[in-house]
């Protein structure tokens, strides 16, 4: 289903391309030995190179290069065996060198693909144009002093991967799915932690609108949006603004805009005329990055199973639906959790418990999977208790509630609370007999053909046994006694 915005003059399609900056996981910065640790005292992670002292020279951090190649491989992208660092020149207080070392016409990674998992279980592929390595700038703080801005260079020189998509995205929902999937991939790879709120993943969105099927319109770039939800909102709001401008007889000016999430609007930041001339040129302080096949294949060997492959395996081996498998692989921790639960058990049953019960409870409590009070081992044990008829599915739900509350071991909970299922035929028969004796009229109704009343009897027996009677046995014995 294509996403269409209805304007006053007819339908509009939106075209979106995303540029995502992912902070590379590495101990030290892209061109210096300074630490990348987040949250240290301002200006404590700063080397002479980061502060651009006279005569200082950058030396590329091989780990960052490996991480970028790994990410490229994870995006099924072409790894460029020769790439070049270039200087992007502009003046700003948080850019000590007066230029950012980036890559321009020869990035480290070329074209690739990301498969989006849409909420309806369908998939869509979005092209990756390139991935390049570059330095982050420092941070300007304008709220520390009434007269002066303060500069923190801790982030200055930290490695970023800028991942640029093709303009293949056609709805806010797809943009959200793109970011979710990209984040999952880099997290699976361990190349970026993907925390948008800490700024380790930041997104610029290029948005334009067009009549369905027509050529691309003029785009505006919305800078530095810091959550997936805000990206989705910003795209919709910007598209609507553009439609309004065009339908009002105006023209879209190519420009850079900012999204104000409080006011729910985008506003102009820099027009095309005011755009910087970055005067890119190859950085003469650095040699081109040159790789051989062995280097690439060595990294390839280290690649973990990625979300798409994992999803396919869950569907193939565990018989999961595309939707369920997609939910489970969305986060590596979730998939890992599920795999522990499913090991040696019914994969579908495990998926139901993990998705419906566990994720439901965690969402309600606003707790992430890594902070789940219920361990995967314990959830597995609970499923075992159901499978071997120790407890019924209904009792299991109660046990699960307790596990969520206390984090306890289901076997112990069942033991302590005496929740073991009654499978002793004699005990169940006694309970049935009592209910039959107390309700002769209802027995007659059933015998007269009102089958549905059987359910009522089951309920009564379960109630009198505190829910512990094996429901299957209760059903069978009731039938035998009343109809048999």
């Amino acid at each position, binding site marked *: 289903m294509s996403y269409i915005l209805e304007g006053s003059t007819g339908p509009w399609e939106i075209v979106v391309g995303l540029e995502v900056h992912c902070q590379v996981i590495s101990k030290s910065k892209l061109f210096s030995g300074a630490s990348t640790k987040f949250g240290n005292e301002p200006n404590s992670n700063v080397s*002479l190179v980061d*502060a*651009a*002292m*006279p*005569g*200082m*020279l*950058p*030396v*590329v951090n091989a780990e960052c290069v490996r991480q970028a190649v790994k990410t490229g491989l994870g995006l099924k992208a072409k790894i460029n065996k020769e790439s070049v660092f270039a*200087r992007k*020149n502009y*003046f*700003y*207080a948080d850019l*000590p*060198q*007066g*230029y950012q070392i980036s890559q321009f016409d020869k990035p480290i990674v070329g074209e690739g693909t990301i498969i989006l998992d849409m909420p309806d279980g369908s998939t869509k592929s979005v092209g990756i144009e390139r991935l390049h390595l570059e330095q982050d700038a420092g941070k300007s703080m304008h709220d520390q002093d009434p007269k002066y*801005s303060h*500069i923190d260079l801790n982030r200055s020189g930290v490695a970023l991967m800028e991942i640029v998509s093709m303009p293949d995205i056609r709805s806010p929902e797809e943009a959200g799915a793109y970011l979710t999937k990209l984040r999952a991939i880099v997290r699976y790879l361990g190349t970026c932690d993907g925390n948008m709120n800490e700024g380790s993943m930041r997104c610029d969105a290029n948005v334009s609108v067009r009549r369905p099927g027509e050529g691309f319109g003029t785009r505006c770039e919305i800078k530095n949006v810091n959550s997936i939800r805000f990206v989705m909102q910003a795209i919709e709001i910007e598209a609507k603004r553009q439609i309004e401008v065009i339908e009002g007889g105006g023209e879209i000016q190519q420009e850079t805009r900012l999204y104000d999430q409080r006011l729910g609007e985008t506003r102009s930041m820099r027009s095309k005329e005011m755009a910087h*001339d970055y*005067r*890119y*040129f190859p950085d*003469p*302080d*650095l*040699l081109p990055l040159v790789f051989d096949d062995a280097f690439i294949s060595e990294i390839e060997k280290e690649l973990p199973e990625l979300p798409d492959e994992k999803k396919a395996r869950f569907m193939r081996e565990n018989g999961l639906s595309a939707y369920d498998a997609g939910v489970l692989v969305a986060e590596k921790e979730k998939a890992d959790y599920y795999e522990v639960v499913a090991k040696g058990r019914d994969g579908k049953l495990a998926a139901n418990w993990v998705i419906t019960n566990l994720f439901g409870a965690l969402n309600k409590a606003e707790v992430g999977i890594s902070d789940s009070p219920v361990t995967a081992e314990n959830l597995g044990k609970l499923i075992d208790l159901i499978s071997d008829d120790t407890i019924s599915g209904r009792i299991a739900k109660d046990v699960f509630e307790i596990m969520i509350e206390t984090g306890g071991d289901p076997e112990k909970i069942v033991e302590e609370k005496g929740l073991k299922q009654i499978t002793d035929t004699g005990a169940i028969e006694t309970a049935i007999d009592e209910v039959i004796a107390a309700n002769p009229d209802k027995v007659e109704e059933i015998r007269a053909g009102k089958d549905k009343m059987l359910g009522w009897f089951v309920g009564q027996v379960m109630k009198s046994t505190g829910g512990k009677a094996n429901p299957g046995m209760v059903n069978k014995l009731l039938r035998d006694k009343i109809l048999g």
Partner: protein
Amino acid sequence: MTDLTKLTLAEARDGLAKGDYTSVELTEAHLKSMDAHRNLNAYITETPEKAMEMAKASDAKRANGSAGKMEGLPIAVKDLFCTEGVQTTAASHILEGFKPEYESTVTSNLFGNGAVMLGKANLDEFAMGSSNTSSYYGNVINPWKDKSGKDLVPGGSSGGSAAAVAANMALAATGTDTGGSIRQPASYCGIVGLKPTYGRCSRWGIVAFASSLDQAGPMTKTVRDAAIMLGSMAGHDAKDSTSAPIAVPDFEAALTGDIRGMKIGIPKEYRVDGMPEEISKLWDNGVAMLRDAGAEVVDVTLPHTKYALGTYYIVAPAEASSNLARYDGLRYGQRVMDDGDSLDDMYMKSRAAGFGKEVQRRIMIGTYVLSAGYYDAYYNKALKVRRRIYQDFEGAFGQVDAILTPTAPSAAFAIGENEGDPVKMYLNDVFTVPASLAGLPGISVPTGLSAEGLPLGLQLIGKPFDEETVLRVGGVLESAANFTAKPAGQEG
């Protein structure tokens, strides 16, 4: 006792080893000479206390039997090398008062080998110039005088280093060469200047002018001195990605004096229109000397030579415009700001006040050639031509072992001459720039005097990382020329 300042580096080294004198005595003699020649303005910062401290430590080291290759030898350091705790200005107002917390790799190597620092030598601002008249700290005066006796330039940009060595204010000096900044002042001051292969010496800690061209090298009284000093400066440095990971040979051992059978190339393109007769003659004499020493002289062609100067004045300013962006008044050096100024105001005022005219001119040229719409026409084309120039040399070195050319198109000129005409000033580098663009080693050796009695040098250009051949042929040229003239007051 002999005047210790008139020794060569090699003589002083051997004298120290024999115990004829101490480093303290050597250093004191040079400090006295610096006092006597302060009018030449060869130093921006003199460091007599540090020098004496280093000399004492050096004598102690020698007494311990752990003398390095340059142990106890007092030298000048071009003020483009960052020196820990010692003001480093690059001859610019914008860095006035800047004291680095680090030592450049080259000076660190030299000091590690025992060298003693006398002070920081004057230069053209940010090494941009061929006359040492663009220094914020004043012109350097060439110790040589022409017949009129007026003040002459020492050449540039390493003019202070050249003047200091020529006037015996240092046994030797470090220089840096981007387009001729070691070789041309060496020629103007009658000393030896060696620009090594790009990558031979680390650039770490040298204030950058044009990163793809800058290279440190020795400025000395003799070719042997250059060999000794280069051995102590060079070496791979992991902190400079463009430094070559190759071993440093024993350069002094290359001075065999034997060039029999070697092939020396004479590039016809260097015989430029309007070349002064005396330069032409100097060159011919050099050819004859090498031939007499048993070398075979071969004509070679370097067809893209005529584009070299234009290419250089695109590439070097382009890189400089970016390299000098860090001097913004924010973290170190001069800041000019008035109350209520914006960040942009501060940039403009600090940089307008901090940079001299020549530096501003090159920043503007560099910014222009990199700007949108001009990049391909200028910078990109320059890179292509640069490649051709390298290929020219590659072709020539298929036939010859070294190439002989004049170092500069003239002798030293008067201070103030050429000032109004930057292009004329740039022409001083016409013979040195091609080797810089190709990254090749080049040495200037004094071989004669002009009609005005001023020194003139010849340049030998070698294959990449073949400084040994350049030094060997240079040594032969030096012996044959027997250049013994000295500036007035420095005669032996």
